[in-house]
């Protein structure tokens, strides 16, 4: 019964799961960055550069799922 229901599901699950994981990852990076700037406001520049780098890494996984899967 449940498998018959599950078999009816269609759509882009891979994109949804990739977006879920990527969004959570970016949120974690933001949390770490905010905490570290709150502890040490003078390190804002360096922390921001590293945070943007990590966000770009986490975000690019979504594009792999979007464009590399037929």
């Amino acid at each position, binding site marked *: 019964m449940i498998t018959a229901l599950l078999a009816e599901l269609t759509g882009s699950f891979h994109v949804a799961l990739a977006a879920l994981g990527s969004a959570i990852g970016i949120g974690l990076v933001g949390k770490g960055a905010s905490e570290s700037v709150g502890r040490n406001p003078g390190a804002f520049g360096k922390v921001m*550069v590293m945070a*943007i*780098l990590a966000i*770009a890494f986490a*975000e*690019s996984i*979504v*594009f792999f799922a979007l*464009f590399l899967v037929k």
Partner: protein
Amino acid sequence: MLTSVFGAEPVTGEEHGLTSAAVPVLQVFGLTISNSMIITWIVTLLLILFVRLATSKMSLVPGKLQNFLEMIVEGLYEFFKGILGERVVRSTFWFFSAIFLFILSTNWFSLLPGVGSMGWGHTTESGHFMVDIPWLRGGNADLNMTCAMAMLFFLFWTIWAFKFNGVKGVAKELFGVKSDGITGPLLAFLAVIFFLVGFLEIISICFRPISLMFRLYGNIYAGEVMMETMMEMGPITGILASLPVYFLETLVGFVQAMVFALLTAVFTATMCSTSESEGTAH
């Protein structure tokens, strides 16, 4: 109402909207020129014109244009010197700054009104003019463009890796044991592990241009699709909804340019700058 406007069969056979590949505009001597190629030419011309104008009469106390250019160049040079170290940045700065300025200018130029909305098309029954082949299209919303930049980076990374380290140095970086003061059987054990990890490292290095390419393409293309979708919501709500997305795209254009340049610089630094007295691990 929507079907009457968009019901006219689209030329490409896909849904109405931005196609994921660039659309060819002209055919010159058998070469196909697509609309994103045209915009990259325009951006390059503008950049060259700007630099030429700013450096035409250089003086010790600079005028406004020269001051602006000096601010950009010096700022970028200090930024990359902090990442790469003095020796490497001398011979590699041209690449990173060119990548950053080009991607930034292309992204921001592609946001100007007219890109994607001027072109050849046909008039539908309700009197609207629907553009089928736009003359201009976002420069980095074309996978060929980002692929070219990523492949160029890979080529230059290989050249610089061998130039700054030598063949033996490259092998030591990839396969060598990166800890000092360990001898005996532990060293042999670690050597085997580091050797096998070296192959994984090679795979990850070969994957880098692909990730760079898809990151930039995905961000810019998704932004354009988002703007277009917002604008189709109706005459008033479309404008209200797409304004925040427009400014988001400005920010995304800047961030993606910075991320591309920063990532390429960091990849080069991990390979070429550890031979200096930085002392950073691996």
